């Protein structure tokens, strides 16, 4: 079975990555298994300065998933470059750095800091976090998103992935604007904005009031957006949202994702990423595919046609 897949010029040994914000910088999972098994690691969002994150309560339970409003607590660029990246460099896996900040200047500072560092395969621009005050600023307006992407494009030669929010009317329009501005790939989806209410305390469970819904409950939303992006755009998509089995991963590939990321599933099953790699191999075989490439967009004829025409 050929599990290798290419996205934006990066060859992943298998199409299973870990999603940003559910994996830290790999240190904890490395106590449980060899990170070199993974196709790639999308690290926790890195901002220019250290961020405290939101006050607790940050987590709420939801049927088939969870809500979170962590607020991108992270140790900042310098700590990432001196402590976290060197740790990840020792593993044979592709490291994708999730970049976040409040404004263009901040994004560019992180991108310039990461650019040229050994062991960084790509940048994922996080313009879709619903849990910080201005997290969705760039997503709400495709022109604004494109403006940021164009500036970042000039600041680095690293492959550029833009993480797409499901909390917009037209994710395809947003993706198209990013592609035209120079994005090499898209990742979809970030969490779905939601809320939980505490009846006894008569207020939302989460201190931030709203939080992002993730887990199996959002898989249909993720599949729909990945399908639409792959159908309409020429750049590849990394699919994520509720993947907890090899079967789920295969569904995303068939919808049009070139690779997938496992997120919330690692909270319930810390070994989910390596397990899903094994399951996906069996699922591909059972479905009659000889490679990840064959499964790609198998359920999305418009997307396949578009590559044949190109």
């Amino acid at each position, binding site marked *: 079975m050929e599990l290798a897949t290419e996205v934006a010029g990066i060859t992943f040994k298998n199409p299973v990555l870990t999603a940003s914000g559910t994996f830290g910088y790999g240190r904890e999972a490395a*106590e449980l298994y060899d990170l070199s098994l993974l196709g790639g690691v999308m690290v926790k969002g890195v901002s220019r300065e*250290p961020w405290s994150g939101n006050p*607790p309560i*940050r987590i*709420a339970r939801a049927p088939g998933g*969870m809500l979170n409003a962590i607020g991108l607590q992270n*140790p900042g660029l310098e700590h990432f470059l001196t402590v976290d990246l060197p740790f990840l460099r020792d593993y044979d896996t592709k490291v994708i750095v999730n970049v976040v900040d409040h404004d263009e200047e901040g994004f560019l500072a992180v991108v310039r800091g990461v650019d040229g560092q050994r062991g960084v395969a790509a940048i994922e621009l996080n313009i879709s976090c619903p849990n910080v005050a201005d997290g969705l600023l760039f997503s709400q307006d495709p022109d604004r998103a494109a403006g940021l992407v164009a500036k970042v494009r000039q600041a680095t030669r690293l492959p550029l992935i833009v993480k797409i929010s499901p909390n917009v009317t037209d994710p395809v329009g947003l993706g198209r604007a990013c592609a035209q501005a120079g994005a090499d790939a898209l990742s979809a989806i970030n969490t779905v904005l939601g809320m939980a209410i505490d009846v006894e305390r008569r207020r939302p469970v989460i201190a931030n009031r709203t939080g992002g819904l993730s887990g199996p409950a959002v898989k249909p939303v993720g599949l729909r957006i990945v399908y639409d992006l792959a159908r309409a755009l020429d750049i590849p998509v990394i699919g994520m949202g509720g993947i907890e089995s090899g079967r789920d991963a295969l569904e995303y590939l068939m919808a049009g994702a070139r690779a997938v990321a496992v997120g919330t599933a690692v*909270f319930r099953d810390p070994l989910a990423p390596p397990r899903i790699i094994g399951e996906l191999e069996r699922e591909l075989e059972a479905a009659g595919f000889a490679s990840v490439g064959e499964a790609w967009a198998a359920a999305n004829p418009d997307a396949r046609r578009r590559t044949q025409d190109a």
Partner: protein
Amino acid sequence: MRPQDVRVVERLQPAPDCVELVLEFPQDEEPEPGQFYMLSAGDGRDTYLPRPLSFFRTFSPRRMSFLFRVVGPGTAALGRLRPRDRLQAMGPLGHGFPLPERPLRAALVGGGVGVPPLWSLGRALRQRGCEVIALIGARTRFGLLGQAELQGLGIEVRTATDDGSRGHHGPVTDLLGETGADAVVACGPEPMLRAVQAFAERTRLQDTYLALEAAMACGYGVCLGCAVERKSPDPELGAYGTYARVCREGPVFRWDEVKL
């Protein structure tokens, strides 16, 4: 820490809304008093996230129990388990209680379902020759848990209830002053922990430790959900140091490490 497939060997119901599950692990476990496990039962549709629970009693290297109140879908799924049912347990997680080098007089303060981690600690302290007194509090006498089990370790137990239906009528922390303890360890609801913090501050009893509970998704340090504010953050970490993870840096903190 590792995820394990465990089996229910016994189900007890020490109070109308509380369940104690005795679980059999596939390998020998040696958790420290105060450490916890993430338990998940069912297929995850009603409640996706596993439930953090401190272990209660240990019976053999592979057998330990978990005592909890059924409060939501997660604990309800666990409470529905019967002998021979299987579930996932990830652990042991976090840092437990520091143990004294010399024998001392320790007071263990447990509120409601905060009692479980105090049993294994009480046993370890007794093995080290400590004098141990346990103060158990609850809303009513029906919520007083672990009394007989603690007494079984040779620990004196005093009780308090909010409604006065047994023991002292009032907060269990009212009883702290008369214990003459050199060390205090507490686990229970936040108002109780705040009262213990205030007691430690007033009496300058540095050896006061709190076992915290928090809403938590992963239990092993990656989700950053279980944040608790640090009292004196490491200036090297900048704003990142504002919060500690209950699951990794805790769940046991010294009284002056955290803001509740």
